[in-house]
């Protein structure tokens, strides 16, 4: 099976570990993720202004490239990218007139994209599509009692037109975790925002959020937290170190991309992991549970 793959900016820089682990896991599961030859920044945040058509051009142009690649599905790892691309598709599908205008701006593109030709898919949905049984079979390292807190963040669940699962009570991550042989830890803040880009000039918001989210996961007994979004990752991992600096009593929780955990469980080459990128070192837990 082959899908097109759109990395987006952060996956090539700060979130290298996400990309390498995800591609390796998919490869093991029999999926080739073929990176688009040409791709642009998605624009990061879907523009919510109804008159701001310029902002739709970047995502639509990427989708044009995806259509040209010939694969029916376009994989995004970063959830921001998923959200922006998917919502752009919904946007143009809902309004033919705006689609026309956007096309007019892209007069140099040979291909036109109408909305239904390429399906934008996130990595969780892709794994579910491959089959949880297949994932189960591929697991080589059986762990005992490894308690995982799955953190969804916002961008895969909201707004509901593009949600991959119930916005209030999703289960897709837990299903994958269960299939991979780990235990799920339920914590009530798994779908709540980490503070997002407010980290840049309102870091207090993020710190408050991180404390709440991490604290709740720890309270419910998590050994590790898995996430999907490079920004959530920063806000929940990097920020923990900062909170710790301010408050030495603050208990930390290692955060991994879900595909990093899966890569370990599938017994993939340890060289793909660069644990130095983590500010809360996950290695002690991983060693304790026999994954390293």
């Amino acid at each position, binding site marked *: 099976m082959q899908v097109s793959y759109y990395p987006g900016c952060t996956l090539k820089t700060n979130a290298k570990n996400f990309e390498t682990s995800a591609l390796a896991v998919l490869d093991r599961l029999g999926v080739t993720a073929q990176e688009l030859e040409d791709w642009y920044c998605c624009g990061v945040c879907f523009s919510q202004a109804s*008159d701001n058509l310029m902002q739709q051009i970047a995502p639509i142009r990427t989708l044009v490239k995806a259509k040209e690649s010939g694969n029916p599905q376009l994989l995004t790892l970063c959830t921001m990218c998923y959200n922006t691309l998917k919502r752009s598709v919904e946007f143009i599908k809902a309004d033919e007139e705006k689609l026309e205008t956007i096309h007019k701006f892209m007069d140099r593109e040979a291909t036109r994209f109408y909305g239904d030709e390429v399906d934008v898919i996130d990595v969780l949905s892709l794994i579910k599509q491959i089959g949880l049984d297949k994932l189960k079979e591929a697991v080589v390292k059986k762990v005992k009692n490894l308690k995982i807190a799955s953190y969804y963040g916002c961008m895969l669940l909201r707004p509901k037109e593009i949600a991959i699962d119930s*916005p209030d009570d999703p289960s897709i991550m837990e299903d994958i975790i269960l299939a991979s042989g780990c235990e799920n830890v339920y914590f009530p803040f798994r779908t709540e925002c980490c503070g997002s880009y*407010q*980290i*840049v000039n309102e870091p*207090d918001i993020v710190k408050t959020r991180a404390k709440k989210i991490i604290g709740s996961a720890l309270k419910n007994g998590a050994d590790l937290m898995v996430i999907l979004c490079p920004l959530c990752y920063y806000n929940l991992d990097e920020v923990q170190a900062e909170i710790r600096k301010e408050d030495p009593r603050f208990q930390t929780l290692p955060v991994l991309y879900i595909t990093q955990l899966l890569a370990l469980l599938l017994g993939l080459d340890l060289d793909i992991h660069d644990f130095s990128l983590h500010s809360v070192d996950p290695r002690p837990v991983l060693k304790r549970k026999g994954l390293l």
Partner: protein
Amino acid sequence: MTKKKAISSRKLTSEDADQLHDISGVNVYACYQCGNCSASCPAVEFMDIPPHLVIRLAQLGFIDELIEAETPWICAACITCTVKCPRGVDIAKVMEGLRQIVLRRDFEHINIREIDKKLREKLPQIALIGNFRKTIL
């Protein structure tokens, strides 16, 4: 809000109110003030006006007050409010509309140059680009 505010038809049909409607595409009058948006907002404690009151003020035409408010800039567009709203009011779009009104009047809410260089390198690009929504780009 200790000041007494006059409600008038002029306020309700002001150009500002029209602009907010045009940019956001949202009919704020559908709101019946259940407060679910505020109840679910993860950043409400940092806001000067909670989301449901933003909509209330928009209904009453007090756009000027909203333009001066911090709330739209605290909103991180997590869309929780929109998902929760029982009446289909897209609150997140209203917040964006308010930010846009300000930005289109040549007012930048943040100055990129003030961001610490070290932080700029460390942060994921998506955080920076996302935050640049608070500037005229």
